[in-house]
């Protein structure tokens, strides 16, 4: 079974600071990787995803993430954060199956609560 570890449970930054949120996964096979964001009281929204190809993926709102296979990592970055980025961020993974195919349920990390101070 796969597992996901997010190292920072709470992060507090000032506006314009750079952001990096760590995510490591544990799984022996090939995976699909996702970052979701949850604003207070709202549903989860997809920020970005990695399936294959370029390990540096760009998402919405200026976020990007880099897949480093050798480190089993998929860290989220943003060069300059804004107050509106205050939210909960979840890294998630599902196994990529070659036979049968199909989207599997996601395994989520515990989340990182990001607070941006004006």
């Amino acid at each position, binding site marked *: 079974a796969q597992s996901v570890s997010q190292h920072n449970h709470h992060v507090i930054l000032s506006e314009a600071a750079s952001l990096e949120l760590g995510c490591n996964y544990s799984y022996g096979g090939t995976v*699909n990787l*996702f970052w*979701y964001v949850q604003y207070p009281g*709202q*549903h*989860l*929204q*997809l920020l970005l*995803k990695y*399936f294959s190809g370029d390990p540096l993926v760009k998402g919405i709102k200026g976020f990007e993430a880099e897949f480093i296979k050798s480190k089993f990592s998929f860290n989220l970055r943003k060069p300059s954060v804004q107050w509106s980025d205050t939210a909960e961020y*979840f890294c*998630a993974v*599902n196994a*990529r*199956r070659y036979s049968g*195919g*199909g*989207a*599997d*349920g*996601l*395994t*989520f*990390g*515990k*989340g990182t609560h990001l607070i941006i101070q004006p």
Partner: protein
Amino acid sequence: DARVTQTPRHKVTEMGQEVTMRCQPILGHNTVFWYRQTMMQGLELLAYFRNRAPLDDSGMPKDRFSAEMPDATLATLKIQPSEPRDSAVYFCASGLGTGGQPQHFGDGTRLSIL
């Protein structure tokens, strides 16, 4: 924008009562997921369906929880009898059947069992 619709948004009920949560997936999506979010456990997969057939419900307590898809536009999650430890936000998500496609989440049902 197509959305996953969940009802009710909030539910408060007493312990022992039956609770039914409903989800309307995005039209054309053939995979439906149920997740539960709590402070202690975070987001956990409870069950999921593909083409209305249950594929995995290993995350769901079998004695009191049941999940069904009566038709392609409706998924239900029932708890009977409910217990205070079931208090959580329950999210439904839908996606395409091809591997790795992102899941689209509904707004969730915030359930409080007194």
